[in-house]
């Protein structure tokens, strides 16, 4: 197996996730699929910039959104989140991690008939605020929470 990979990771602090920025050249912007994928939004670094790239105005905080996860993740490579929106006409639910190199992790379109509820797993490079961003009736709303990421092991 690739021990070298592990030593590289260890050398930079042991986090399993280093960074998530990617080279724009790898995305083949010419293809139809890549155009459908919102490259600009996935390159942003702040909540407001991400919403702007998604075509919205700065979001407002909402108690109608529940962002649920453990407060401490044993490993940043897999952090489970459940997001529920009680906002009427919820159209999309996105997950954003403030301290990841690029803030937007995933964006789910919720058609009519699908519950505004998503359960998924994302990577976190370090302890960070996480946002659930919901588009409802054309406007953006968010909820946030901090998730601590711990390190571990004898070689870390």
């Amino acid at each position, binding site marked *: 197996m*690739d021990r070298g990979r592990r030593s590289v990771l260890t050398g930079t602090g042991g986090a399993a996730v280093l960074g998530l920025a990617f080279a724009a050249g790898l995305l083949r912007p010419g293809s139809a699929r890549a155009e459908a994928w919102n490259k600009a939004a996935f390159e942003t670094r702040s909540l407001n910039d991400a919403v702007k790239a998604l075509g919205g105005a700065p979001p407002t905080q909402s108690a109608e959104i529940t962002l649920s996860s*453990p407060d*401490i993740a044993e*490993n940043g490579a897999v952090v*489970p989140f459940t997001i529920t929106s009680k906002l009427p006409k919820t159209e999309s639910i996105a997950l954003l991690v403030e301290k990841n190199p690029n803030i937007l992790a995933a964006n789910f379109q919720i058609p009519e008939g699908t519950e505004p509820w998503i359960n998924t797993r994302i990577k976190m490079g370090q302890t960070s605020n996480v946002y659930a961003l919901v588009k409802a009736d054309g406007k953006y709303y968010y909820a946030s929470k901090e998730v601590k990421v711990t390190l*571990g*092991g*004898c070689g870390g």
Partner: protein
Amino acid sequence: MKALVGALGAMAACAAIAQQPRSPAEEIERYRAAIGEANPAELWEARGEALWKEKRGPKKASLEHCDIGLGPGAVKGAYTVLPKYFADSDKVEDLESRLVTCMVTLQGFTREQARKDPFGGPGKKVPMDALVAYVTAQSRGMKMNVSLDHPKEKEAYELGKRIFFYRAGPHDFGCVTCHGSDNQRIRLQDLPNLTKAADAQRAYDTWPAYRVSQGEVRSMQWRLNDCFRQARFPELEFVSPASIALTTFLAHSANGGTFDGPGMKR
């Protein structure tokens, strides 16, 4: 567990009750419960089943007639009797060793080929991890029942026990350093006391496991290899006599426990 977490959440939200922050240990428990709901090891199990049935190697044969402990072709429950003595090879073998033997005898691979690349990694899928995931999953819910009746089984157990307590290297570590006392942890990871049945069962019964930190299914052979790496030993060779002896000691110590692998670990 989930209901309890929900109830605690509701209490914390209630303004009349002062918020009681959960301890780190409770939060880690919540984390494990949440990720335990879906184990990517299932992807390995499916791949392993296909590989088990696929005609491979110079002899273009499947592994469906491999005797992994309960007779040729019997997969269900076979992992619970391993390691065990096999008359055809005149050796005590664990699952990985036995798969190597069958890849040689049934499929015609050289031993060298069958032992090569035992552990997967990023972008590298290997047959061994998948086969181990498939075979072990067929023993889920069954009790571990490793025999020491044959003299070679007894000897492997005794050697394994001595290896467990063997301290060496620049850190003076042995298996016992981390796994010889109750209720200890390294960073936030609980360390099973492998000299006690209950802990040995809990640990052994959940390997192999999907390692969240690596995104891979890891076999018991990998587990031992990586423990020795961190204990600052040289590199433990795949299906080596020491690895099988140590596995015999650990598996027998876990007898009576209900096998629940492949598990999911940090």
